[in-house]
């Protein structure tokens, strides 16, 4: 009789709860992603295979151990190693190629099996001069940014000072904007 109607109302209210929670939380997701860089798509690849996202294919080329280039450089902290990381990116679509002249950013970091994240070092004496680009941008002879043609591979080298125990399981993480995406390249 009446209790069936009340139950109906009760269930209706119960169904409203996720709707209200969603209305409160969803507008914050964008701000959360912007502030923390988390969220968004994920693309994972292992063993040098390609990870595809946003019209680009990212690949881990190599992780090798580096050494201090100058005899009298500032010494490294104890129990650490230099990791020289080379990755490549290749646009698969025109859109992907055009990303290289936009304000979009790529934050490259080294990761280990335990989930720790290392930012590239500011030092420039960790590895010999290489033909690879230090950033995810291509430049012409006059140092202007140029879009990358579809299928053209750009190799990028970054260097890290990591604890020695992290070196064996090092992988790479790349955070992309503006369409938030995380690329994980595992060894």
């Amino acid at each position, binding site marked *: 009789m009446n209790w069936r109607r009340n139950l109906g109302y009760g269930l209706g209210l119960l169904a409203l709860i996720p709707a209200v929670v969603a209305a409160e939380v969803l507008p914050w997701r964008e701000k959360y992603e912007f*502030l923390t860089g988390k969220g968004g798509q994920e693309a994972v690849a292992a063993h040098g295979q390609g990870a595809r996202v946003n019209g680009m294919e990212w690949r881990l080329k190599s992780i090798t151990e580096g050494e201090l280039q100058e005899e009298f450089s*500032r010494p490294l*902290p*104890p129990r*650490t190693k230099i990791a020289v990381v080379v990755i490549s990116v290749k646009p698969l679509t025109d859109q992907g190629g055009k990303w290289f002249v936009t304000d979009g950013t790529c934050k490259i970091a080294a990761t280990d099996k*335990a*989930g*720790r*994240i*290392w*930012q590239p070092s500011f030092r420039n004496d960790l590895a010999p001069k290489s033909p690879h680009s230090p950033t995810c941008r291509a430049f012409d002879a006059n140092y202007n940014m140029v879009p990358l043609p579809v299928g053209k591979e750009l190799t990028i080298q970054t260097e890290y*000072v*990591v*604890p020695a*125990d*992290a070196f064996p399981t090092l992988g790479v993480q790349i955070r992309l904007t503006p369409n938030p995406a995380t690329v994980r390249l595992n060894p």
Partner: protein
Amino acid sequence: MKRAIVSVLTGVVLLAGILGVRRADPDGDRKYEPIATSGVMGQQVNTTTFQLRVDRVELAGSVRILDSYGLLGTTKTTAGIWVVVWATVAATTEEFQMQGARLRTTDGVEYLTSTVQGTLDKTALQPGIPAYGPILFEIPRDKLAGAVLRVTRHGTKGGLDHLGPAVDVDLGLSGSYAKSLVQRTPALLTVDQVREL
């Protein structure tokens, strides 16, 4: 008549209840305060983001920084007293910098770190590579007793200091000890830079 009195009394009691609950509601700042882990001098405090141990506290009338090249910086005087907190800190999973380090005195005043370069609060720490170094504050001479070091990842601008864990370390500055420290303060202290361990 009795029903009228009962309703009025119920109304008054409910009103008092509403006022009481409203008053007990913490203000915006308290609501968003990070949940802090407490520690004492010499104790390693662990949070999800960083590990911290305060090793010692020194005072000085003026300071100068000895940089990694062995060069002395300019001598910096103060209208109060320099407080140099030596600490060891390590990042756990991601890069960490204690941008929100501050000294909180018993009267509730918060002193931000000095803008002097090369101190521990301005060092970006990578996971697994701890560092030892100084954190510098300037405070009035009579405010030292009971001071607590608070460490957070984010600074105080933009409300970001409410994100992430916080650590409060009691610097062990009891009234008499603080007074004796202030009396024995050296006029000049040369402060070493941050060292990675």
